[in-house]
């Protein structure tokens, strides 16, 4: 066992047990209630708006890769892309996907192609609309802003891991009058999206969006498991506060670094 990682392992295993338990419970028919998220409801509205205006949709799954601590955001963005692609295909609305990370490109192509296939509109799928722009951050930013300016989309989706380019995209989208739905778990970019976009999906909501579009008990059950995980986290925080207040700071430190 690597030193200092026992507590992390215990937390990980507890969370895994809670999530799988919740998924099993949902599979047995006990689907959890999901509260409404305005940003999620607005996704269909945004696609509909683009359709009415006869304008395309621009989708950016962020600039994070598939691995590391921000990789999950890219997977969440691809999950949402699957729904957006299917709905855009049903509405006969053009969808332009802008990619920064080369490894994400074949996955995004497959996700979009499957979306068109599910909608029975595979003939409308244009591989040139899933575009790799550049792996350099600001070259990608310039590319996305250029596409927004030229194509004048009716809606933009900025979902995934974003850094300094977040506000550039959001401001350009705002300037061209697009309905903007943005979401990231990158803490320092959330406020930019809140300031400049119509709807913002904050932090963990990004990972929950997929469940809203699906009756799949696995996705819905996992959301319920996450809530139990948060309750456990709150319990641990309260226990830590009590222990620290009554002189047990060393004990807390020992447990955390066990």
């Amino acid at each position, binding site marked *: 066992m690597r030193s200092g990682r026992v507590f*992390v392992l215990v937390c990980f295993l507890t969370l895994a047990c809670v999530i799988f338990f919740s998924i099993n419970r949902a599979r047995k028919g006990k689907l959890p209630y999901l509260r409404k998220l305005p940003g999620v409801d607005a996704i269909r509205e945004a696609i509909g708006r683009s359709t009415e205006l006869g304008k395309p949709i621009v989708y950016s799954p962020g600039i994070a890769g598939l691995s590391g601590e921000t990789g999950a955001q890219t997977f969440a963005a691809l999950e949402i892309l699957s729904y957006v692609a299917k709905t855009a295909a049903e509405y006969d609305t053009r969808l332009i996907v802008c990619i920064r990370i080369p490894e994400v490109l074949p996955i995004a192509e497959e996700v979009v192609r499957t979306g068109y296939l599910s909608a029975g509109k595979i003939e409308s799928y244009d591989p040139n609309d899933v575009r790799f722009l550049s792996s350099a951050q*600001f070259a990608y930013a310039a590319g996305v802003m250029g596409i927004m300016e030229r194509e004048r989309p009716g809606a933009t989706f900025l979902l995934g891991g974003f850094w300094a380019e977040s506000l550039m995209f959001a401001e350009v989208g705002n300037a061209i009058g697009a309905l903007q739905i943005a979401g990231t778990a990158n*803490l320092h970019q959330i406020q930019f999206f809140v300031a400049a976009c119509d709807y913002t999906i904050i*932090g963990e909501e990004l*990972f929950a969006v997929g469940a809203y579009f699906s009756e799949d008990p696995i996705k819905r059950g996992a959301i319920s498991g996450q809530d139990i995980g948060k309750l456990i986290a709150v319990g641990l925080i309260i226990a830590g506060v009590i222990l620290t207040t009554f002189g047990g700071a060393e004990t807390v430190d020992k447990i955390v670094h066990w």
Partner: protein
Amino acid sequence: MKKEVPTITTFVVGVIVILDYFFQLGTGTLSLEYFSREIQNWMLIVAAFAMGLAAINLIRLHVVQIRQRKTGWYNSVALIITLVVMSIIGISMGTDSPLYRYWYNALLVPIDATIFSLLAFYITSAAYRAFRARNFDAAVLLVTAFIVMLGRAPIGEQIWSSAPSVANWIMDYPNMAGQRGIIIGSAIGAVSLGLRILVGMERTYLGQD
């Protein structure tokens, strides 16, 4: 096969990397650490192949732009010429060669800096809209931001001596509490999604519902 192979590969690779994070098992080339490192090296190789695919996508798209003489087609010509020239220089002379470094430093770096500097204008326009006190929430944001800015700017302390300490309190307590809430929620969400992908319950990324 199209479904099973990626799922099994994801599971095996994911389990090895997770186990390596927690445990030190085996020695030398039979250790978890060795396998984990090898997997991460393979990731780089796969990424290199993906870069090739991405370059093909990029060239295909811009060749179509040029052929159809779409608006701004000459930009596509510039892109393809730059891509080809930089690739030839990089492959033949190396990325550390003076010629490659010259073009990199003389072209890409200033353009990158220019794009980045646009952010200052975007921040100003976004702040103008965000700080309009249209409702109670926006008014709270405006007042809080004003106090924090006052506390962070040298002139703030001259105007109001307590401004830095009030700004620090806002950043260290209410702000930090909110940030940590988002971080904990996001981390749990990421673990949940990661676990579903690991055991093959989540396959949307493979193009499957």
